Every structure is written in structure tokens, then in C-alpha cells.
């Protein structure tokens, strides 16, 4: 590869990454060394091989939403610890650590936004927050996302990246699947579109609830998407899984998603889908001839 001729600082001096590994990163796809700033500017897509690295919730907002702006809803919701769960470390401590590490309060952001001038209700999982797992707060916020979108006549665009239900909330986390899908079902009755965007990874209880119920399901290249984890399947059937199993390309082959869309085309593609689905024919507008 060509070395960038000049590093153009894109951040304040106060937050710049200045030393060692922070300046350069190795592409997970082609293994080439890239300037970290170059990857970040390309929304984590390798300019050489097209490998999609994880883009955080902030990056997705900038990529999809006009001015990167989200009018965030229900930002104060925080989990309780209904089971007083501990695996050696208490659930409360795990939440506190995740909040500190991610500077997010929970594993999803929701809110109102514009996508290419179109008003939408938007949600995005924060994978770095406990693997994007769905507990009571995530379930509640997804239910509210659909309820508010239904009330406001807005389409929903939901980006998913989640390992599934949050074990530490036990059976209550399972119930979030039912709660969120019930809210989606009411939203659908309003004939408003739901574009379900499946990022890497979308598995378990999130996959097995609303993820595949989009009017249009969109996946990112190579994203891991499936119900059961690879290790669970391998130990059940005692076979090694074929290469590419549960990847986005496997899902499109089996008819489970409508399309695989590279990050660079995501905004335009979702926009076009929304235009088609929101362009309702007025009654009596059919040509009479």
C-alpha cells in the first residue's frame, strides 16, 4: 500500500491518538497497515480490500443521519438488578464498568433523526456495552421506539449488533423479546416501514425476535447473523461448521435477508427503500384510462 503523504489531524489536540499502535492499524481483511485516521475517515471500511471493521454507534450516526444528529429519547433509563445476579462479580458492578468504559448508559440509543431529509425514528445497538445484550432497558427502549414511531407516523430504522438476551437479567430478558415484538406488531398495523439493519454480530434473542421481521432486512457484508452460537451447534451436532456459515452471504443464499449493502451505500439504499414504502398512492389516483 501507499503510505499517506501527510497525516491530517481530524481531532483536537486534546483527544488525538498520538503514540504507538494508535497511529496505525492493521486491516482484519488484507492485513495491510493503515493510518488509523484514514480508516476512521472511511467509516472503518478498508480502502484497499473493503473489509468492514466494527463502526461504533457514534460512527453510524455520522454515516446515516443528517448532520450526524440524533434527538435522543429516554436517555436516563438504567437497569436494575432484579435477580441480584452475580457470577463472581455482581451485575450492578458489570453495568457500572460498562457505563464507564463506553460512556453509554445502556446498550441501545434511540431517537428522532433525519436520513437524507426524511424524518425517521432511529435505533442503534451499542455493541461495546455488554455485547449489545438485550435486558429490560433495551427491550423497553425498542418498545418505545416503535410506539413513538407509530404515534408520530415515522418509519423505523434499527441497527442491530447484539449477542442476544442479557443473561444477568434472566427470564426478564427473555420477556423483552415478546415485549419488543408486540410493540413492532402494533407499529406494523399502522403500515409504516421497518428497515431492519443487521450488523456484525446479530445473534440469539435479538435475531430470534424483531431482527428478521423488517419489511426490508439489510445485512452488512460478512456480518455474523444467526440463532445459535457456532460452539453450541458444533457441540450439538459434533461436526465442524462449513466456512461462511451464518455469515451475511449465507443468509442471502438462504433467503433470509433482502440484500447485503456495503457501508458506503447504506444511507442511499435505506433512503430509496423508505421513499418507495412511504410513497403511498392517494385514493382515486389510479389512472382511469
Amino acid at each position, binding site marked *: 500500500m501507499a503510505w499517506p503523504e501527510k497525516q491530517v489531524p481530524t481531532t483536537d489536540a486534546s483527544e488525538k491518538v498520538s503514540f504507538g499502535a494508535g497511529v496505525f492499524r492493521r486491516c482484519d481483511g488484507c492485513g495491510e497497515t493503515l493510518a488509523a485516521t484514514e480508516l476512521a475517515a472511511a467509516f472503518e471500511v478498508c480502502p484497499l480490500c473493503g473489509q468492514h471493521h466494527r463502526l461504533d454507534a457514534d460512527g453510524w450516526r455520522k454515516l446515516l443521519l443528517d448532520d450526524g444528529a440524533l434527538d435522543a429519547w*429516554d436517555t436516563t433509563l438504567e437497569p436494575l438488578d432484579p435477580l441480584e445476579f452475580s457470577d463472581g462479580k455482581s451485575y450492578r458492578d458489570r453495568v457500572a464498568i460498562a457505563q464507564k468504559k463506553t460512556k453509554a448508559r445502556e446498550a441501545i440509543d434511540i431517537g428522532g433523526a433525519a436520513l437524507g431529509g426524511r424524518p425517521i425514528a432511529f435505533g442503534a445497538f451499542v455493541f461495546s456495552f455488554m455485547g449489545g445484550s438485550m435486558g429490560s432497558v433495551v427491550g423497553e427502549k425498542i418498545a418505545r421506539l416503535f410506539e413513538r414511531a407509530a404515534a408520530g407516523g415515522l418509519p423505523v430504522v434499527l441497527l442491530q449488533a447484539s449477542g442476544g438476551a442479557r443473561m444477568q437479567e*434472566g427470564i426478564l430478558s427473555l420477556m423483552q423479546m415478546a415485549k419488543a415484538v408486540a410493540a413492532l406488531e402494533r407499529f406494523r398495523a399502522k403500515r409504516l416501514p421497518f428497515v431492519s439493519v443487521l450488523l456484525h454480530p446479530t445473534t440469539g434473542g435479538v435475531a430470534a425476535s424483531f431482527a428478521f421481521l423488517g419489511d426490508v432486512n439489510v445485512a452488512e457484508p460478512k456480518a455474523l447473523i444467526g440463532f*445459535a452460537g457456532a460452539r453450541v451447534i458444533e457441540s450439538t451436532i459434533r461436526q465442524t461448521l462449513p466456512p461462511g456459515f451464518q455469515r451475511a452471504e449465507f443468509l442471502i443464499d438462504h433467503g433470509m435477508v433482502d440484500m447485503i449493502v456495503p457501508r458506503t451505500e447504506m444511507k442511499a439504499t435505506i433512503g430509496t427503500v423508505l421513499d418507495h414504502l412511504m410513497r403511498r398512492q392517494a385514493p382515486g389516483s389510479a389512472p382511469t384510462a
Partner: protein
Amino acid sequence: MAAFVLPFEKPVVDLVERVRELRVLSETDATLAPELARLEQETSRLARELFSDLTPIQKVQLSRHANRPYTLDYVKRLCTDFVELHGDRRFSDDPAIVGGLATYHGHSVVVVGHQKGRGTKENMKRNFGMPNPEGYRKAIRLYELADRFGLPILTFIDTPGAYPGIGAEERGQSEAIGAALAAMARVKVPIIASIVGEGGSGGALALGVANRVLVLEFGCYSVISPEGCAAILWKDGSRADEAAAALKVTAFDLLRLGIVEAVIDEPAGGAHQDYDEAARQLDAVLWPTLSALLALSPDALVDDRYDRFRRLGAFRS
């Protein structure tokens, strides 16, 4: 059926056996009646006492007991005129989920339940009660059939979970379960789910989006199996006992957390000791529960179900 006895239930099983023997003898010798009555009472008292301090993992083991009554055992005892319906109209028929039309207290109903097998051969056929996508698609077909004809739906939950296999993923296990949740949320008829054995995660919930959820005393319901949870948390599946305790999976935990409306007592020693009595005890709660729901309008039933699940969750705002 081959008797399968868990170590901790041995004393209770012995007592139940004695009662059974005495019951046979007393049929020909009326003088044994007082002794039978005494022993029955004693057995039930002892069984309660012995089972009162079972650990969560022991209750999980009871919920999976090889002799436990399964869906069709209950349907046979609760209903008449059962007509089993097969197939998802898309790919195949999944014997891990059974369903059909039946008469329950004079009402035609649709029943849908997980079905485990008795013995190796039937278990192979029924995949140990672990459905593939076509099982859930059959369930959806039956939910929609019930909706079109205004028939109440009774479901019976008893599964280790949806099957984790290559074919299941190829045919959309996730989509099938998600679509089943949506169908249950949508239908305008009463739905009552009874957890009669194991409630294994999303594969159980696909039969569980009901207006009322009942659980048998030794039924369980969990987001992940205790073994799976221990494997993830501690890389050690043998610590399932700790995981079972931490996950709060037992019937009374479920009641306390608001996941179920009622816990159904089981006969002395558990449902597997007396199928008829287990079915009678379930019926004693199931029928009044259905009667009450029959008074609601179709739209009210959908709202009732929505509100029930909308409330579930623990957070502060």
C-alpha cells in the same frame, strides 16, 4: 414405562410405590381403606417436606424428568375429540411440536405444545423436543387458524430449546421464532400457556406470548440453560447448580418476578407419579382462567396480552 429415578427423589418414590401397591390390594380388601388413606396423607406430607428444600438444579432435573407427562399426555386427559394437525405447508412436519383441534370443557380449542419422546426411538423422532423452524411455522399456522375461527389457544411448553443445527439455521430458526412471537401478539383469541416441563429460552417463548401463563410446581423457565450459562460465565458446564440458582428459574421465582400468573401444585412426588392427578390439578386452574378470558372481546384480548408483556422489565428512568 421404565422407571427412572433421580437420587434425591428415591425416598418419595418408595412411598408412592407403597401407596400404589396398597391401592391395588384395597380394591379387593375393604379393611385396608383406613390404612390407605393414612398412607396417602403421610406420603403427600412427606413428599412436600422432602421436596420443599430441593435446590434449583434439582427442580430443573425434575422438570426434565424422563417419566414426566408430556403435552399429549395432558391433551388426552384434558380434552376430547382431539384431531392432530400436521405440517407447516412449507417444508415438512416437525414432530417436536404437536398441535390440533380439541374440545375442552365444551369449547373447541386449538392446542399447540412441544412434544418430547418416550424412549430413544421416539426421542430421535421428536428430536428430544427441540423444534426446527418448521415446528414454529406449524405453530404459526395453527395460531392463525385459531384466529380465523375464533378458537381459544392452549399451549404446553416443554422444550430444552429450539434446535441448534445447520439445517435449522439454513431454514431460518431466528425468523421462525420471531414470527411466532408476532403471530401470538396479534391473534384476537384467548391464549393460555402452561409450562409443564422445561421452558428453554426463545424456543419456549414462541409458545409463550399468552394472556395468562401458568407453570407447574416443578416446571422451569429460563433465558439460557443452567449448563449453557455456566459454560459461558465460568467456562465450566458442571457449575450448572450455581447457574440455576443465579438465574432464578423455578416456578416460585417465576411467580415472584411476574412471569407467570399461577403455580400449579403437583401430585406427591411430582407430576410423573400420577398423570391423572397432574392433569386434574392443571385443569382446576386452566379452566377458570380460560372462562374469565372468554368474557373479553377480541380487541380487549390483544390489548390485555400487550399490557401483560409491556409491563415486564426492571429498570429505573
